[in-house]
């Protein structure tokens, strides 16, 4: 333990930690714009500078290690003046259109300007011509609002291993951009949206289809139906000021009906359906020696990632569509014909924790005969905005059930929302399919938690099944490279693009706090613990769907509606 003095108060610190982390523990908040908790300090924004006795200049607390007896002033006039000037410099050529900005109420820069008492424009600037990048189906990039903190660049490179964006040019001409400064759509961007999640300003935002959805809801010719993903019900509450980790599935159903959707379905239903198909596919591959390990395919950013960077592994990816797309296909085929509705009248929307789902829904493979399975995708954040716009008092709604028949779910389907959940659900069903007995206990503890890479060996009959779970695409790279080098021998691998899984998806309420993630995850595990049905193969509606329509897993109809294929993408890397 080290003792140091901050603002004339004695505080304790650990050897080797940074001043910033010691201050945080002591309840002293020093602002940052470029700091990412899980990565090495970058030292770019200089907002965290503090006065350290004996040092000539101000010291960046995010990167400077503590030493015994250090005397620090965190909010001295000199430090405050420096911080204020830095924010003023950022504002000098920042657009003044906060009123029109997507991040108006969640902008870190705006909050800092207020905190530091910036009340007049001290520095003029020369206008710079920036072009907004609207090319991506998921993300809109407005370089004019970019403050070059570099967080998106580092997340994309260090956490996601994609490196779709980097700094271009020098000095005040520096911008963040793609290779050759082309549109995001032709870059290696996988649309995961982690950059949007971490961006402190409105430079990176999701591409919204809310207007289109509102129009469809108002159109008497169209029948708007909606599905919500497993991870949405455990995060939406945060948008309405409730504490993280609450499951509001019932209220969510009610709110969606208030918005005007004719039917409200639960994507966890099709997650169960996915498990039936995927577990069968795994069993089939194991029996026939098909390409192993098999990879999950429900995370669309991951699918694009492997298409771009590891095309030689494409055969290893499960051919199952994601739950969103499966339900979309079932709605427009089974549900439409069963209820005598012209599928062309159905406007099928999904609420997802994800920006890549927008891209997935727009893939040509997902629109057989040119008719998309899913018409529009909105994120948790966009849904909250729609609820607010329609004047719905979220907190006073009474919970309601989702609609029959795609409202019934097992808790296995719900587990899809967290890293490791798909694997756990699949193992439960694969065990049953291969042995006729339930996995006991159903909980696979080794696959739970926020670690980036988790592995387990599960005994199914005579076979030891080796599985791995990774979240964050840099971790996926690690696994793929290990498989390629022969270091890992695996049967089944679950990959989620976002670190922590869908609960940390790019479309979720803005957060960078691991405690919040843990609360969201705990909510999913709690749902599983209390659930009467914990396995996908016990979902009666899924069973009925097979009976009445699909036939059997991997059957002809399944193949036509629920499976897809992938192709190598040659993008600028």
């Amino acid at each position, binding site marked *: 333990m080290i003792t140091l003095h901050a603002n004339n108060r004695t505080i304790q610190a650990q050897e080797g930690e940074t001043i910033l982390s010691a201050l945080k523990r002591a309840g002293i908040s020093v602002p940052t714009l470029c700091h990412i908790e899980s990565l090495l300090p970058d030292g770019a924004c200089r907002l965290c500078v503090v006065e350290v006795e004996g040092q000539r200049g101000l010291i*960046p607390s995010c990167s400077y290690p503590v030493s015994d007896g250090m005397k620090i002033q965190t909010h001295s006039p000199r430090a405050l003046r420096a911080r204020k000037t830095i924010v003023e410099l950022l504002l000098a*050529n920042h657009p003044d259109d906060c009123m029109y900005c997507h991040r108006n109420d969640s902008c870190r820069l705006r909050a800092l300007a207020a905190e530091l008492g910036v009340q007049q424009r*001290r520095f003029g600037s020369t206008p710079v011509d920036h072009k907004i990048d609207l090319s991506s189906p998921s993300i809109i990039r407005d370089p004019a609002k970019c403050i070059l903190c570099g967080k998106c660049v580092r997340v994309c490179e260090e956490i996601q291993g994609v490196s779709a964006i980097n700094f271009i040019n020098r000095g005040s001409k520096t911008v963040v951009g793609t290779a050759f400064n082309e549109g995001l759509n032709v870059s290696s961007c996988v649309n995961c949206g982690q950059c949007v999640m971490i961006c402190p300003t409105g430079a990176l935002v999701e591409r919204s289809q809310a207007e289109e959805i509102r129009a469809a809801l108002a159109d008497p010719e169209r029948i708007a139906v909606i599905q919500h993903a497993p991870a949405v019900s455990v995060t939406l509450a945060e948008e309405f000021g409730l504490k993280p980790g609450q499951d509001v599935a019932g209220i969510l159903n009610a709110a969606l009906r208030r918005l005007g959707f004719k039917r409200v379905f639960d994507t966890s239903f099709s997650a169960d359906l996915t498990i039936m198909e995927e577990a069968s596919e795994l069993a089939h591959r194991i029996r026939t020696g098909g390409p192993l390990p098999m990879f999950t395919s429900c995370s669309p950013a991951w699918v694009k990632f492997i298409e771009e960077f590891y095309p030689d592994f494409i055969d290893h990816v499960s051919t199952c569509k994601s739950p969103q797309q499966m339900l979309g296909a079932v709605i427009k085929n089974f549900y439409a014909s069963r209820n005598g509705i012209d599928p062309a009248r159905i406007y099928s929307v999904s609420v997802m924790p994800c920006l890549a789902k927008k891209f997935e829904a727009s893939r040509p493979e997902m629109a057989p005969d040119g008719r998309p399975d899913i018409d529009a995708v909105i994120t948790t954040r966009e849904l909250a905005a729609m609820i607010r716009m329609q004047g719905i008092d979220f907190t006073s709604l009474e919970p309601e059930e989702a609609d029959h028949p795609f409202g019934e779910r097992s808790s296995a389907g719900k587990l899809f929302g967290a890293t490791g959940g798909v694997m756990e659900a699949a193992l439960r069903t694969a065990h049953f399919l291969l042995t006729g007995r339930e996995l006991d206990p159903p909980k696979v503890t080794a696959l739970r938690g926020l670690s980036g890479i988790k592995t387990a060996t599960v005994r199914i009959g005579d076979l030891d099944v080796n599985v791995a779970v990774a979240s964050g695409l840099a971790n996926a790279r690690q696994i793929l490279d290990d498989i390629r080098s022969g270091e890992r021998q695996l049967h089944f691998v679950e990959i989620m693009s976002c670190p922590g899984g869908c609960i940390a998806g790019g479309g979720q309420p803005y957060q960078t706090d691991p405690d919040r993630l843990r609360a969201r995850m705990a909510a999913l595990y709690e749902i599983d613990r209390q659930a009467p049905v914990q396995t996908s193969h016990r979902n009666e509606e899924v069973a009925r769907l097979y009976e009445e329509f699909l036939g059997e897993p991997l059957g002809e109809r399944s193949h036509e509606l629920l499976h897809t294929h992938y192709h190598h993408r040659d993008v600028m890397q």
Partner: protein
Amino acid sequence: MKAINSTPVSQPTVQTPAAGGAIAPWLADRLNDSLPRLRRDLVAQPVVYVGAGTCGLGAGAKKTAQAVRDYCRDHQFTADLVEVGCIGMCSAEPLLDVQMPGRTRISFTHVTADCVPAILDAVRNDQIPENGWLGQFRHPEHRPYAGVAFIDEHPFFAPQTRWVLANCGRIDPTRIEEYIARGGYTALVQALNSKTPVEVITEVELSGLRGRGGGGFPTGRKWRLARQNEGGQKYLICNADEGDPGAFMDRAVIEGDPHRLLEGMALAAYAIGASKAYVYIRAEYPLAIERLKRAIQQAEEWGLLGRNILDSGFNLTVVIKQGAGAFVCGEETALIHSIEGKRGMPRPRPPYPAQSGLFGKPTVINNVETLANIPPLIANGAAWFNAVGTDSSKGTKVFALSGKVTNTGLIEVAMGTSMRRIIFDLGGGTPGGKQYKAVQIGGPSGGCIPEQHLDIQVDYESLKTVGAMMGSGGLVVMDEDTCMVDVAKFFMDFIQRESCGKCIPCREGTKRMLEILEAITRGRGQETGNQTLERFKGVMHLAELAEVIRDTSLCGLGQTAPNPVISTLRWFRHEYESHIFDRRCPSKVCPGLLEYRIDAERCKGCTLCAKKCPAGAIMGVAKSPHYVINDKCIGCGTCVEVCRFQAVAVV
């Protein structure tokens, strides 16, 4: 405030061989030619030397050398033609030296191709012309020419102490043998045979050598820190990314004496325990790169680089890495990123490179001049080295003199030499009888020294007392025709363009500072009311902005970026005030603030100026005096240029 009191010790000049002249027997035995011949104490046939550094080549040395070859062919004159590096007097290039057998080597200035036959004729006939020569090199065994001054008495050379530059312009940089014959590689052989790495470090520590790249960090301490990080791969990097405007010390050393650098690197690598070394050099130095490549190859052939050097178990591979010309890549952490193949952006320190540098391994980064100091230091010992200099700054410093000074070029003086001596004795003062105004030292990161502080000793600490810094060695002299606001603007423009863009104060702040300076120098006629307001607001915040940038920037480049403004504001505040309050540029440089007036007596009404004026700011009727409308004038000066009657004047 002056902490340094000792006076510089005068030292022998150009004639001193690099490392005292003694040559390690192992090296001497392997020389395939006799020592006197290699040192050109004894020449069998005439030798013609052409200064063919980049400065010489720029002045036409290639053609001069060809003219020498043509002359030899046409006149059946058999002579050795040697292309040497720069001796330092760049303003006198192309330089051509002739050494007849038994005679001294005599040096001629401004020898363009057409002058070659006459000069060679004259020397062959022992009829040295009265002028056109620089002088002759003193040598005990060579008969001097009558009536020709010795170079060591020349005011440009006499005050110099040439250790690093000892061989520059003297030897053939493409032959390792010539370097060895002048004592080169002897320090390395001695060290590998009889000194432990720690003893080498101790020697460097005792010498008081400090980093010559600008920071002035004690070299020995840096090495010891890296040495203490035991185990595994370590790296040595030579920083040859010389980027300051007006600085060319590193280039001259590598072009003129590349083996000195390699020997210094080998000693440093041996001391810290590195087996791989990089030379990070700007791609704009093609000749230096070519010379260095050749030198590395020769040193490997001699077994002075490579595996198991001199059976000592010490291995060293030297790799050249070319930089793409980003100024910030001279900053050590940005340089490391660049070698690693990343964008050249600095990262916070600690950890320092000596702990975690290139590829995360302990790394020492030294500047070219620092490393070039090592061979004579190790050969002659710390006591020899630190006998020269001041209390806190030992040895010599190489400077590149440029700007408004008579003798532009490269010099090496003992630490503690006064700035006045450098500019007025070595540099010959400002040309054309103009008044000296200031010298910018340390490039864009440095500061300027006004007339009243010219007697300051050049050493790390003294320079700081006047707001300047040693820097890497660029000296840009300015005279009365230089506007100091314009100078500050020039450097701010350079810095804001070269900022890597990573940290906010440097990226945004330098741009804002530049805009404020631009507003100060912009003419009223071109200004809107809002701009006038912005100008005054800017002036009010200029000093504070400078302070915050200095206080908070990530790397040295940013922390020193406001220096040109801080320094000129300190010494030339009145010039700023003239620009701001009187809207006048006292040095008549800033076009927007110049007022042109047509002398009615002289003006013949030829209408030429009115026709040529791009702003339509000149009115008048033919054959009667014209006049300038100041609100329209953009200050371009075209009217002055075109007037045949000298009727337009700047007031």
